[in-house]
């Protein structure tokens, strides 16, 4: 009986299509926002969490590289290299520079520059998708979004704090939305920032089987002016830093999206119950159990939400591809578990919003079937 009962009570396909489209739009809104958030955190995870770095040495009290401006003492690098268990320790210089196209007058960009022991030192670009790493001064690897905004590609030229620099590579997973990472040799970064020989962080690689905690404690004991973080710990602190401003916005838009979807589903079920009140009365008069009638109406709502959710997810993937091709400034990282969670929450919202119309359904008197 159930499939027939479901078909008997389903709303007209045009109305169903409109409702599913509305849910899809809500799902698209929320998926895109969550995917933006994932992109943001994945850039930090990708760079800070790159597998070659086991420990991060930062100035005392500094727990992230996004908003830090402190510098390490000049002797830090040498002292770190001398700690037993340290296989390699490489300096990183971090600063913001103003970048603009070498020959046209587009608006300048503020880039988060990381100067490292290029091309093979620790702390370079996590994934170069075009070109190569910088090898000498006045060479830079730009994030794809920066390159797009500056209107350059590999082989092009940009001004970094007034110094003309050649783009030798394009990196992915380095877009922080508000800014992007750019990678230079340490010499170039020193020249652009004016920090001289001082460095912002030291990236440490341990010898095989070394006890990371013990090495970290030893470094902190030898160098009182530093904080040492295990890779996962530093990733977590950096993610927290970039997400702090984004999460409230994410929460608000998610709530608005869910509310919009819930209102749509509620309207739909209201329409099904009100428009089909006589049909429902007939079914009840014929002896259909009210629980099955109610379940059919609810199933209809859930099916519409799931179809809308799947449509929204598909549109999100298409939107991501379109952005990557034509407007890479905004990157989207879509996780299947995020999409499933969003569809599940939409279903819960749909069920909650169905309460009032279902109360109305339960008050339908089968005797209404006899009224002319």
């Amino acid at each position: 009986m159930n499939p027939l009962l479901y078909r008997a009570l389903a709303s007209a396909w045009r109305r169903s299509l409109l409702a599913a489209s509305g849910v899809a739009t809500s799902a698209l809104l929320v998926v895109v926002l969550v995917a933006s958030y994932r992109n943001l955190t994945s850039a930090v995870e990708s760079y800070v969490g790159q597998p070659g770095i086991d420990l991060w040495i930062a100035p005392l009290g500094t727990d992230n590289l996004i908003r830090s401006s402190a510098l390490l003492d000049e002797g830090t690098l040498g002292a770190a290299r001398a700690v037993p268990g340290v296989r390699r320790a490489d300096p990183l210089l971090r600063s913001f520079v103003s970048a603009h196209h070498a020959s046209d007058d587009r608006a300048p960009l503020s880039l988060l520059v990381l100067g490292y022991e290029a091309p093979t030192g620790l702390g370079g670009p996590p994934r170069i998708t075009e070109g190569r790493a910088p090898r000498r001064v006045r060479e830079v690897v730009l994030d794809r979004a920066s390159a797009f905004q500056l209107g350059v590609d590999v082989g092009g030229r940009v001004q970094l704090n007034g110094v003309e620099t050649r783009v030798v590579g394009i990196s992915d997973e380095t877009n922080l939305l508000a800014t992007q990472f750019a990678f230079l040799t340490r010499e170039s970064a020193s020249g652009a920032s004016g920090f001289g020989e001082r460095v912002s962080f030291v990236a440490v690689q341990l010898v095989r089987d070394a006890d990371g905690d013990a090495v970290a404690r030893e470094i902190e004991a030898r160098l009182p002016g530093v904080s040492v973080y295990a890779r996962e710990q530093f990733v977590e602190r950096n993610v927290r830093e970039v997400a702090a401003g984004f999460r409230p916005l994410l929460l608000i838009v998610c709530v608005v999206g869910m509310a919009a979807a819930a209102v749509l589903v509620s309207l739909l079920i209201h329409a099904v119950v009100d428009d089909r009140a006589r049909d429902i009365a007939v079914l009840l008069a014929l002896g259909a159990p009210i629980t099955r009638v109610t379940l059919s109406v609810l199933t209809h709502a859930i099916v519409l939400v799931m179809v809308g959710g799947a449509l929204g997810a598909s549109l999100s993937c298409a939107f991501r591809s379109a952005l990557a091709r034509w407007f890479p400034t905004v990157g989207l990282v879509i996780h299947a578990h995020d999409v499933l969670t969003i569809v599940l929450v939409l279903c819960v919202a749909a069920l909650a919003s169905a309460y009032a119309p279902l109360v109305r359904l339960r008050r339908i008197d089968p005797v209404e079937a006899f009224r002319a």
Partner: protein
Amino acid sequence: MSILELHRVSRARGTGEHAVQALSGVDLVVRPGEVVLVEGPSGSGKTTLLTVSAGLLSPDQGDVLLAGERVVTLSASRRRAHRARAVGFVFQHPNLLSTLSARDNVLLGALIAGRERTAALAATHALFEELGISHLAHRRPNALSGGEEQRVAVARALVHGPALVLADEPTASLDSASGRAVGEALAQMAHTKGVGVVIATHDPRLRVFGTRRLWMEDGCLGAVVNRTD
């Protein structure tokens, strides 16, 4: 043996100043194969009689026996299940479900009554043949005429093999040919399958199909009129 027995059944509709005695001490017995016509003016209580007979409304007083069960003592769910098995309805409007084909409307009626799907499909097919409406099986209600819709509604009322069919003004909005076809279908099923049929009607064209005619007025049933009147 009777299919339906009403003993001293009373039922009021509305409350307070607006309360109306829709049924007042009604006695009625319907036997297998009978076609009982209940005539009377609008508001006389005919529809209330049908809904109380089916167990959709409980009487304020009196007793109702439907296919061997005292419906007033049954729980709501058992009453619903008993009604689904024992009663078929034909409403004034056909009330077919617009999203289903004619065949599926009838099939759903059988499934609601608890028939197994294969048996329900076979019964639906056989009934469409018997009523001469096989050509309508795959049409949606909006592609049927009023008479065709009502004949499909008759099929829905009969598909699960009920003991009793209750029809409320089934020919009210039909032309004479369609009205005759609906009356013939109900009478045919009463005679061939032993179904008891109660028809509330104003339509004199149905008199030819009735085995008994009753008159209802102000909630009272009586004034039995001979079939030859």
